[in-house]
């Protein structure tokens, strides 16, 4: 039999002898070591740091509650994560070509980036859109553009993620209309709409309508999809943008799950049974620089959501408890200085996402501090994922860092701190109230400012930016969007307007407005408007007339 060693005693002995001698000779680099969430790190984690942990309650087995070790029993031994590069620029024609290229390169899912007019519900010829058409994504003015975007891409063979929020219902309706034209049954459609309006108010900015009306559209989508599009993820509750806006890892988890709670509550209040829609909720997180904290963050988020769904909402099905998520490496960590270094940064961030058990992943490109990426840059970013998947070996063990004293201790601390935040938000009356009062925005802004100060005071070193700098020649090999795109898009839009049945458009918009004034599900009306080739701007305006528009409270601190 093994003799029982008292590890606390051993540690104490080590501190007084081996460690002490070394510290006397050479002190450590810093007085204290902290993560981005201000979690103070120990020098060394020991088995007793996690001895309180009840294994089955806190970790469990992969594919089982609380899913800390992963949502599937075999994880990447079964199938790799979906490699999904967010892409879209200029016109539907050009983006369609990029998609076909990416699929040929081995990408396994599509992710559509829309331009800002599309995201905010304006047609390309709206005065507010000058200079924005086709810039941060593809311009979609009507079903006609959507047909071009997916031309030659069978929708039963790909899964498509669409970063679309305020106008998610319209774009989903267009996707459905394209599928119908391709003859693809709706129950075979796989994909995701972001559809997460709450983080638009706090972090991303593409809201249109006030919170209450926006929440109605979202729950209408949940209800519409639960039978007709059973494989569709009706929302991607996003921490990514909260993190990009400057939050810490803990805040990212807390504010995202608080938003998630608000959606589940709204859907239950709208009369839906929690187990009827919960399995289609998905999540989206960033992967930032602090490797170990990020891995712990993903694991903590999974465990927290499982508890929230089971304990708070009484969900009965294991699939309702599962936090499935997409990850994007953190765009805000990319530097304009020595941009080639970004390839390395992205690789570590991507590795953290994989070790954290992500279901799909976007890796950023080295040139994104300047513009949308070139094809060459995107290829390197995709290859980075393929190298992790095929060469590194990390995909061969389920949750390979599970049980690491440091990772488990960090996972617990993130959970603890994020849970405190959620309690605070609960006390305020939930996420919507916390947004309306500006609490979440202020918390994010404070963290962003702190982060920037740390960089400027060199408490935080960013390689190539505030240390190891060199004189550089301008990096100019970037993707440019021609101003011609805007003109061409407007021409196409005019053509659609002149060729459609204008009476049908008028009628469909009128019926949509009437439905919006009542309580009926809006999706069928939006679908009819889309099929009549009403433009996105017209549909969004119809709802603006009924719902009004949200105005932000400007908060610096």
């Amino acid at each position: 039999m093994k003799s029982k060693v008292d590890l606390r005693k051993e540690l104490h002995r080590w501190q007084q002898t081996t460690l002490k001698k070394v510290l006397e000779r050479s002190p450590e680099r810093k007085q204290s070591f902290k993560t981005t969430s201000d979690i103070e790190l120990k020098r060394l984690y020991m088995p007793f740091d996690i001895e309180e942990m009840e294994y089955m309650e806190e970790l469990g087995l992969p594919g089982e509650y609380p899913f800390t070790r992963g949502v599937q029993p075999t994880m990447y031994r079964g199938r790799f994560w979906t490699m999904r590069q967010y892409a879209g620029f200029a016109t539907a024609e050009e983006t369609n070509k990029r998609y076909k290229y990416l699929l040929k390169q081995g990408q396994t899912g599509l992710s559509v980036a829309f331009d800002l007019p599309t995201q905010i519900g304006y047609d390309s010829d709206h005065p507010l859109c000058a200079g924005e058409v086709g810039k941060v994504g593809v311009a979609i003015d009507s079903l006609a553009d959507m047909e071009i975007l997916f031309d030659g891409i069978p929708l039963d063979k790909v899964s498509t993620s669409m970063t679309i929020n305020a106008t998610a219902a319209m774009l989903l309706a267009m996707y459905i209309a394209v599928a119908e034209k391709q003859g693809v049954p709706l129950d075979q459609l796989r994909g995701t709409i972001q559809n997460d309006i709450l983080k638009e108010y706090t972090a991303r900015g593409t809201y249109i309508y006030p919170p209450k009306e926006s929440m109605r559209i979202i729950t209408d989508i949940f209800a519409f999809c639960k039978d007709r599009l059973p494989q569709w993820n009706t929302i991607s509750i996003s921490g990514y943008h909260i993190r990009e806006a400057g939050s810490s890892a803990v805040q990212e988890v807390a504010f995202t799950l608080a938003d998630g709670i608000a959606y589940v509550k709204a859907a239950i209040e709208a009369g839906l049974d929690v187990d009827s829609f919960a399995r289609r909720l998905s999540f989206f997180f960033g992967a930032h620089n602090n490797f170990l904290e990020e891995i712990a963050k993903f694991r903590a988020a999974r465990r927290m959501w499982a508890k929230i769904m089971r304990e708070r909402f009484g969900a009965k099905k294991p699939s309702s408890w599962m936090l499935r998520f997409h990850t994007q490496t953190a765009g805000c960590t990319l530097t304009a200085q020595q941009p080639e270094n970004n390839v390395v940064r992205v690789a570590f961030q991507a590795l953290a996402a994989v070790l954290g058990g992500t279901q799909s992943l976007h890796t950023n490109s080295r040139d994104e501090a300047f513009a949308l990426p070139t094809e060459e840059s995107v290829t390197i970013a995709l290859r980075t994922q393929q190298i992790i998947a095929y060469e590194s070996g990390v995909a061969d063990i389920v949750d390979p860092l599970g049980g690491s004293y440091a990772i488990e201790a960090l996972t617990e601390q993130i959970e603890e701190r994020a849970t405190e935040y959620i309690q605070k938000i609960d006390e305020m009356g939930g996420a919507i109230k916390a947004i309306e009062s500006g609490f979440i925005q202020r918390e994010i802004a404070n963290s962003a400012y702190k982060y920037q100060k740390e960089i400027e005071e060199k408490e935080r070193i960013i390689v190539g930016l505030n240390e190891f700098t060199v004189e550089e020649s301008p990096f100019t090999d970037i993707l440019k969007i021609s101003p011609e795109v805007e003109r061409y898009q407007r021409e196409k839009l005019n053509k659609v307007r002149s060729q459609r049945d204008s009476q049908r458009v008028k009628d469909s918009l009128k019926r949509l407005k009437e439905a919006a004034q009542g309580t009926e599900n809006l999706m069928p009306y939006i679908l009819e408007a889309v099929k009549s080739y009403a433009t996105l701007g017209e549909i969004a305006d119809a709802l603006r007339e009924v719902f009004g528009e949200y105005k932000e409270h400007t908060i610096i601190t």
Partner: protein
Amino acid sequence: MEERKIRVLIAKPGLDGHDRGAKVIARALRDAVMEVIYTGIRQTPEQIAATAIQEGVDIVGLSCLSGAHNQLFPQVVQLLRQKGGDDIIVIGGGIIPYDDIPVLKKAGVAEVFQPGTSTQEIIRFIKERVAKRT
């Protein structure tokens, strides 16, 4: 006599919602004892020019990460000139490729700051420029 504080308008023209940079800079300028007005996202060039003139600012800082800067920044400069605010300095920042910087400067933008610029550098620039002007 107390020295007059530098007055700054930080504005986000166009549809872009990325306001982290704008807010961080607004706060840093305020900490550097400037008077800062931040008007939030989705401002038109007309709104920005009108606010700048109405508030009598010395300088306008524009932030745009959506790629619409070539359209929007020069428009703000022109509107300021048309409306009698031609002494107001305009600077910009965001996701702006190197090649666009000379074009923007030619259009009257005094300086363009790319990602990674320290707020101290921007503060220094503003102080020097405003001092030179008066």
